[in-house]
C-alpha cells in the first residue's frame, strides 16, 4: 500500500473524520441528560441569587422548589401565555418569563434579562418587591467578558448596588442606568459601572432598559 498516494490520503482522511464524528455524536448524546441537569441547576442558582439566596448546585433544586411559588410566561401586553415549565425553558420572542418567589412571607417578582456585552451575550435576573417597582436583588451572567474587568458584573459588589433602586419614576418607566463611577443620570435611579469595563457596563444598562421594557405592562398592572 502506497501511503503517499492521493487516493490513500483522501480515503484515510474521510474514514477518520466519519469515525470521529460518530464517536463525538455518541459521547454528546450519552452525556446530554447529565449536562442538562447541571445547566438547569445553574439556572436555578442564578434565579435564586436574584432574590439574594446563594446555595450550592446540589441544593439548588430543593431551594428553588421551596421559594419559587409560581412561574409563567407573559406577552408584551402583560397577559399570561405559558405555564411554569415554559417559563423555565424561556419561551419565544415576545414572551417574557416571570417567577413569583416568596421570601419571608413577602412576594417578589423575578424577571429575566437578555442583552449583549463586549464579547458576547449577557443575561441575568432581576427581582422586584410586591410594589413591582423597587428592586429587591439582581444577578448577572456573561458568556465571555474580560476577566477582572467586564466579568466583574457577576460579583455581588456590582449586583448588590441595585437593591432599593426604582424602575419607575412618577409612574413613568425609566429603568435603572449603569453610569461611570462618579457620574450620575438625570431623572432615573443609577448605579456605578465597572471601571475598565465600560462597554460591558453599557451593555448591562441597555439590557436593563430593553428587557424591563417588555415587562412594562406587567409591572404597571394592578394584580
Amino acid at each position: 500500500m502506497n501511503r503517499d498516494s492521493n487516493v490513500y490520503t483522501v480515503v484515510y482522511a474521510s474514514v477518520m473524520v466519519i469515525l470521529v464524528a460518530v464517536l463525538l455524536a455518541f459521547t454528546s448524546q450519552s452525556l446530554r441528560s447529565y449536562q442538562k441537569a447541571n445547566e438547569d441547576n445553574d439556572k436555578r442558582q442564578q434565579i435564586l441569587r436574584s432574590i439574594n439566596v446563594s446555595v450550592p448546585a446540589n441544593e439548588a433544586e430543593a431551594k428553588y422548589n421551596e421559594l419559587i411559588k409560581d412561574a409563567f410566561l407573559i406577552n408584551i401586553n402583560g397577559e399570561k401565555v405559558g405555564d411554569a415549565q415554559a417559563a423555565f425553558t424561556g419561551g419565544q420572542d415576545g414572551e417574557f418569563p416571570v417567577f413569583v418567589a416568596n421570601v419571608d412571607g413577602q412576594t417578589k417578582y423575578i424577571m429575566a434579562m437578555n442583552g449583549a456585552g463586549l464579547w458576547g451575550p449577557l443575561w441575568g435576573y432581576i427581582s422586584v418587591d410586591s410594589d413591582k417597582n423597587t428592586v429587591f436583588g439582581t444577578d448577572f451572567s456573561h458568556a465571555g467578558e474580560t476577566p477582572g474587568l467586564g466579568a466583574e458584573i457577576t460579583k455581588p459588589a456590582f449586583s448588590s448596588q441595585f437593591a432599593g433602586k426604582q424602575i419607575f419614576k412618577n409612574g413613568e418607566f425609566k429603568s435603572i442606568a449603569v453610569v461611570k463611577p462618579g457620574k450620575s443620570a438625570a431623572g432615573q435611579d443609577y448605579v456605578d459601572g465597572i471601571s475598565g469595563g465600560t462597554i460591558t457596563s453599557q451593555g448591562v444598562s441597555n439590557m436593563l432598559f430593553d428587557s424591563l421594557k417588555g415587562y412594562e405592562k406587567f409591572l404597571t398592572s394592578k394584580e
Partner: protein
Amino acid sequence: MGLLSNKNKEVLLGPLSANNPVVVQMLGICSALAVTSKLEPAIVMGISVTAVVAFANVIISLLRNTIPNRIRIIVQLVVCAALVTIVSEVLKAFAYDVNKQLSVFVGLIITNCILMGRLEAFALGNGPWESFLDGIGNGLGYALILVIVGFFRELLGSGTLLGFQVIPQAFYDLGYVNNGLVILPPMALIFIAVIIWVHRIKNKELQEN
C-alpha cells in the same frame, strides 16, 4: 523488555523533573498562567491534559504506520480535538462549576504545545505502551507545576486551599491581608520563574551559560 524497564522508567519519570515540559521545555506556559489562580481548576486542568496527552499518544502510536505523511499533522489535530471535546463534555456533565472556571482553556488544550510536541516527537516513533507512559509522564510534569503554582496562588491570594479557609481568622485580626496581586496572571509568571530558579539550582546540568 518488561513493562517498566529502565528505559520506560526514564520515559515516565524524566518529564517530572529533568525534562519537565513547563520549566525545562517552556511549553504550556499560557494555560499555566491562566488556570492556576485556584488549586482546584489547576488540578482538573492537570488531569485533563494528562488524560488527553496519554490517549492521544496511544492512538497516534497505534496509527503511526498507517498515517499518510502529508496529512500527519492534521491527523494528530483531529485526534487531539476529538479527545479534548470528549474531556470537555465529560467535565460539563460531572464537574460543571470547574468547567465554568476553566472556560475556554479546556478547548485550548488542543493548542497546548506539549500535546503536539509529544505526538510529533515521541508517539510517531514509538510503540503504544512507551507512548502511553510518555504521555502520562509529560501530563504529570505539567500538572505538577500547575499544582505548585495553584497552591501558592490560592494560599497567598485567597487564604484558602481547595476553597477551604486555611489561614486562621486570628491572622486577619492581626492585620494580615490577602495579596490580591497573586491572583493576577503576571504573578503566576513570577512563581514559575521562582520554580525554574530553584529547579536549576538543584539540577546544575540544566544551567545555561
